[in-house]
């Protein structure tokens, strides 16, 4: 798609007046501890690397994110770390940045239709598959599963669902119900309650993030039936729930590591050093032991 060049191009590799280079971090949202950890990781790394980090938040709205990326361009940051709200909507913003000679590094989710300097993320499809494999082992390849989905239209929800569902299809297990609970704990609770009313014969719940999984745990509280809850993310609350046995497992991402690698990559770009096109941050399945 051709967006003709705006005249107002910023000077390449701009820097704050003080001389410290400025890096912009455009977050999809901070309404989720996952991204707060990612931001913390980035902030720590920025301190160590001696760069100034400017954080903008899109509140999960792609249009707002484009605006904040534009604001970062106007601020003439040296590198933009982009955690896209959605994989398909940010190509234009990335191109605008590149036209202003500002390299873009995507974090946690990718951008379709635009080249970026580097992409740092967990493999969500693989993560979904890990959860399915875990359940296959734990349930002996048989059983009924409820799936709590993330916000419809986000790549995380899509990819995890795909990884999980495709793998489940190869086993004797069955996803008997799937409903979005929008990555939200309160909704995870009520949706689980309702689905459990409708499906009494359920052995496991897979939630596409820990917040929803923790809601499901509440829905199961008081029920003397064993239902395995598997989450995704490995947030502090999620890990604690795995330790206490309330959750069976979580596919832990390393958001702090994603943030840290992002800033380090940005520093390399500023120093004109080569960077890797794609950095996969390992996922780890956490269980009680």
């Amino acid at each position, binding site marked *: 798609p051709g967006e003709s060049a705006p005249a107002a191009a910023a000077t390449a590799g701009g820097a704050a007046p003080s001389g410290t280079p400025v890096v912009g971090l455009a977050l999809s949202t901070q309404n989720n501890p996952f991204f*707060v950890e990612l931001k913390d990781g980035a902030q720590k790394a920025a301190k160590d690397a001696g760069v100034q980090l400017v954080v903008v938040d899109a509140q999960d709205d792609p249009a707002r994110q484009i605006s904040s990326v534009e604001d970062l361009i106007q601020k003439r940051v040296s590198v933009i770390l982009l955690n896209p709200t959605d994989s398909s909507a940010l190509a234009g913003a990335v191109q605008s940045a590149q036209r202003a000679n500002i390299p873009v590094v995507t974090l946690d989710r990718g951008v379709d239709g635009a080249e970026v300097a580097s992409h740092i993320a967990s493999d969500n499809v693989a993560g979904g598959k890990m959860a399915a494999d875990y359940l296959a082992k734990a349930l002996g390849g048989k059983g009924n599963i409820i799936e709590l989905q993330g916000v419809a239209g986000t790549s995380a929800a899509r990819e995890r669902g795909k990884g999980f569902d495709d793998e489940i299809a190869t086993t004797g297990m069955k996803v008997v119900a799937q409903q979005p609970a929008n990555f939200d*704990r309160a909704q995870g609770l009520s949706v689980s309650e309702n689905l459990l*009313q*409708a499906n009494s014969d359920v052995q496991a719940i897979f939630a596409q993030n820990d917040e929803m999984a923790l809601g499901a745990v509440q829905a199961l509280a008081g029920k003397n039936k064993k239902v395995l809850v598997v989450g995704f993310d490995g947030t502090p609350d999620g890990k604690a729930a795995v330790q206490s046995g309330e959750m069976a497992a979580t596919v832990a991402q390393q958001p702090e590591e994603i943030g840290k690698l992002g800033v380090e990559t940005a520093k390399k770009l500023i120093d004109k050093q080569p960077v890797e096109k794609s950095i996969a941050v390992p996922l780890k399945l956490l269980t009680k032991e």
Partner: protein
Amino acid sequence: MTLQLNWSRAGTLLQRLGSVIGLALLFIVLSIMSPDFLTTGNLLTVLRQVSINALIAFGMTFVILAGGIDLSVGAILALTGAVTAGLMAAGHGLVLSAGAGLLLGLVLGMVNGALVSWGKVAPFIATLGTMTLLRGVTLSYTQGSPIPVTNSGFALLGGGYVANLIPLPVIWMFVAFVLCGFLLRGTVFGRHVVAIGGNEEAARLSGVRLSPMKLAIYGLSGLLSAFAGIVLTSRLYSAQATAGAGYELDAIAAVVLGGTSLSGGRGWLFGTLVGALLIGFLNNGLNLLGVSSFYQQVVKGIVILIAVLLDRRQ
């Protein structure tokens, strides 16, 4: 003349019963369509789910009856929940923490009331402003992370049962219903709420003191939102910075579905309870029936529209 009067009463009653009939119909349809629906367990589950919205909607009923609107209820819920959880995390006791949360809700509500009365700001925009502001305060306070709750006594508030059967939030809901209903119909305060919504200028000229009334009305809404926030926090074992997003619309929908006029001056609290139940049973039923979540919203939109079309005053 006497006839006219009775007729007018009957008309009002019929209109009011619209929502009740709607609820009954939904109930029957769901009982037939889903075998899981008409079980004690499920019904109590729905009642528990509804309780949060109902608590907020009771307060909203007063606000709307008085001709106002309160968009900040969800934001107040989130902040008071977070503060309560935060105080407990800092080692304070349950009573002090919950008390502080409730007080905060009351005060924040009164700030809305002050903006509307002394500040003469339209309620919609005043509470839109405080909503935005309080959401920001909550995010700053929690730094975006949930605050976990460990106090097990506190967890009972939203998660406990009476007689091992009836969830405590259901009890709170009915207690609040009785108290608020009484406040509305049996006291001078309630009478003045309706009068303000019916004709503010006339109420003022009759000696109703608008500013204190508005402080009290929005304060009540804030208080009930805070209470809902505490119950929700207890149920979730944690306070969420983004809890209660969109709850204002759910509460308004419950009030209006119940037959209370958005322009103020006309309505009843029972209708709000019915409205909240209608929404709750609909959500539950659609899930039980396994309706795809994409279509759930379509169905909900249609039900809202049909209900208000049936219930409208000509």
